[in-house]
């Protein structure tokens, strides 16, 4: 399980803490990379900026993507992920406060694999994260690796 990295794209430090806690309490002990804005997320995925030189063949098993992000919003991040051959098949779950229909529509249109709304009730949130981890990290068969050019 060690090589199964989770990329958490989240700008809110409270949410970051709570999400990490929820993962931890759900016994999901995978390596978690946190990107605090959209640009950082892309830098990580494509080995740029502060992540230049990173081995981009190592891709996250699951990306949890918030929509409302500084610099570049989550949908744009998603668009770019899907636009790139290397990350085209990357499992991306939108994890957001928004229940706006347009976010849902655009998210799925851009190729989100799932859309989870963060409940305010933390007990429920933890349940959701637990199920999410179980599904994507255990049950789901990951897409084949894409060879880097």
């Amino acid at each position, binding site marked *: 399980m060690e090589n199964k990295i989770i990329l958490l794209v989240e700008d*809110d430090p*409270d*949410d970051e803490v*709570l999400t990490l*806690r929820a993962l931890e309490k759900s016994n999901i002990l995978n390596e978690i990379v946190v990107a605090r804005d959209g640009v950082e997320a892309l830098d990580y995925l494509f080995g740029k900026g502060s992540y230049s030189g990173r081995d981009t063949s190592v891709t996250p098993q699951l990306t949890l993507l918030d*929509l*409302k992000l500084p610099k570049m919003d989550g949908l744009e991040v998603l668009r770019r992920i899907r636009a790139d051959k290397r990350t085209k098949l990357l499992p991306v779950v939108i994890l*957001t*406060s*928004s*229940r*706006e*229909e347009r976010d849902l529509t655009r998210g799925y249109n851009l190729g989100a694999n799932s859309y989870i709304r*963060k*409940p*305010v*009730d*933390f*007990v429920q*949130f933890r349940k959701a994260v637990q199920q999410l981890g179980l599904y994507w990290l255990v049950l789901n068969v990951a897409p084949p690796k894409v060879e880097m050019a």
Partner: protein
Amino acid sequence: MASHRLHNREVIPSEREVAEEVLRESEEKLRFMFEAIGEGITVTDLEGNIVEANEALLRMSGYGCKEELIGRNGLQFIAEKDRAKAVEDMMKAVDGGYGAAREYTFVGKDGREFDAEASGSLLRDSTGNPSGFISVIRDITERKQAEELFKSLTSSSPIGIYVVQDGKFQFVNAQFQKYAGYSEDELLGMDSLSFVFPDERNRVRENAVKMLKGERSIPYEYQFVNKEGEVRWIMETVVPIQYLGRRAALGNFMDITERDRAEEALRESEEKYRALVDHMEEGYLVFRGGRIRYANRRCAEVIGIPVKKLIGEDYWRFLAPESQEQARQTYETLTGGGKVHPIQEYVYLTEAGRRIPVETSMREITYEGKPSYAVVWRDITERKRAEEALRKSEEQFRALIENAQDAIVIVNPDITISYQSPSMGRMTGRKAKDRIGKDPLQYCHPDDISEVAEAFLQLFENKIPTVHTEFRYRHKDGRWRIFEVVGNNLIDDPAVGGIVLNMRDITERKQAEEEVRKLNEGLEQRVVERTVQLQAVNKELEAFAYSVSHDLRAPLRSIDGFSQVLLEDYTDRLDDEGKNYLQRVRSASQRMAELIDDLLNLSRVTRGKMHYETVDLSALAQTIAMELRQSQPERDVEFTIAPGLAAKGDAQLLSVALENLLGNSWKFAKKRGRTRIEFGYAETNGQPAYFVRDNGVGFDMAYADKLFGAFQRLHSHNEFEGTGIGLATVQRIIHRHGGKIWAESAVGQGATFYFTL
């Protein structure tokens, strides 16, 4: 006869001397008488040789002295044709001693013939033997001429003339023969009354006798039956005469049959005219000296007085007061030999006082032989009424036209104005008197003339019956006015005979239209601006909602999340009170999350686009009911959902509405043991509507107006959870569908929510 006496006296013997003297004197007297007598006398011997002749005979025959005659035979002086008759007469005289007077034609000395009547007596000598003749010859030329005259008079007379003696015809003229059909020979000797119609004979005889006696002077009439049996009317007079020395009656008569027939024809003709006059629609009356002398049936009918009573009435009393003067003037002009208009209009008064307008014509005629005045009149009530109606109608139309706001102009086929209504003067400042006969396009704007002229041309050429156009017209004050004109071709209408233009000054309207157009343009601009603003506001609102959705929830998650962390990680350091407070923090943050969700729902209901489709409401309700049961499977709830209810609407919005309504019922009936929730469609207060009914706690209708307001709650949180936004959302959805929503309830009696779509 004198001859006889002369001879007799000659032979009377007497005393010789005395006797000789007496004889000589006597002979002188006799000779004197013989010579002085007016008739010719001749004495002849028995052979007819003349012995003596008197002066009168000389005069008659034209001989100068007796010697020329004495010794000659008297027969020589009788025309050859009568000589045999004369000899015969002489023989008769010898036998009878006397020869009655006979007519002979004598021949005078110069060969001249003359008619004379001769009578003769035989002379005897002293022994009594016949010795000769004495003849008296009377010249009857004049009498003959008179007779000829009478004959020619009677024969040529158109009057039948006859002489009756002893009741028999003694003379009949040619005309009488013609009337009677008999010849003169047949008639002479016939009974004079034989031609009188048998029944009338006594009367005719009496009349004739009276006339003969001088007791009657008027001719009498009777029916005369001629030989052919034809009856003719005769008018006759008789006078007493001497005929051939005796009393006789001279009659003369005329055939008056033809005159009678003419009278009959006249009578018939008059009857015909009378019938005509009595049956004609016109009244006909004759008056003289102001009094009616004749009136036909129509007069009686209209005036209301029988014809018999009308006769003798004063004509003038039937004239209404206002007609009196005119009628009398007309009458006086006529009687004075002047001319009047042949037709006069008066008003007659009937006996009942009704007024009748009449048209009369009066003329002088002869009636009953006297100059009179005939009046023919006609009841013109109907015509007057029609005229009045026409006049009124005309007045109305004129008033309409002259008072209309629109102007009427009639244009002759030669493109001149024949009429313009007063409003045209108002509209143009140009009076009718200045415009009649002028060019209607004179003040038309030069840029518009060709178009208007083309329209006129099309009208005149009858290509189109009506044109509708606009043009600018220069008002007398110099301003341009815009006229709207509708032209109609009424050239063939004899009442118009031209093109009728209906004109309206639309300058103000045009200006108003222009203003409206400008306003509209401005308005459109404003709408665009507002729309932009609205769009911006909407965008802001969306951004706000988005922001709310993301950003307001995040802190709540933190509050709830970290409260939970405290409860989990620091549970040993918190007492029960602390734990309780943290639970309150958590439930408050969760309720606020609900509020935010509901608010976002409400705004979404208002903002989103409607997607109309047929929505199966029954199926929707079933789904919601199922979800509600699953949320609280322990509750005993009976759903009654009418099948097949469908409506046009936005499926998602209607779903939200039904979720709220059914959810409310579910919520407010939770304390009622067995819950009954019904969804159906029924008519309420005359209006068909969908309804959701429950047997829940209901509510007080006094607060019904607060039901649909956002954040309005009728129950406490302790009783029923909720944000107070549900029904506000439902109402917005129903309103967006153009429907209505209302509720009926009573506390403890359950509630029914009705809605239409």
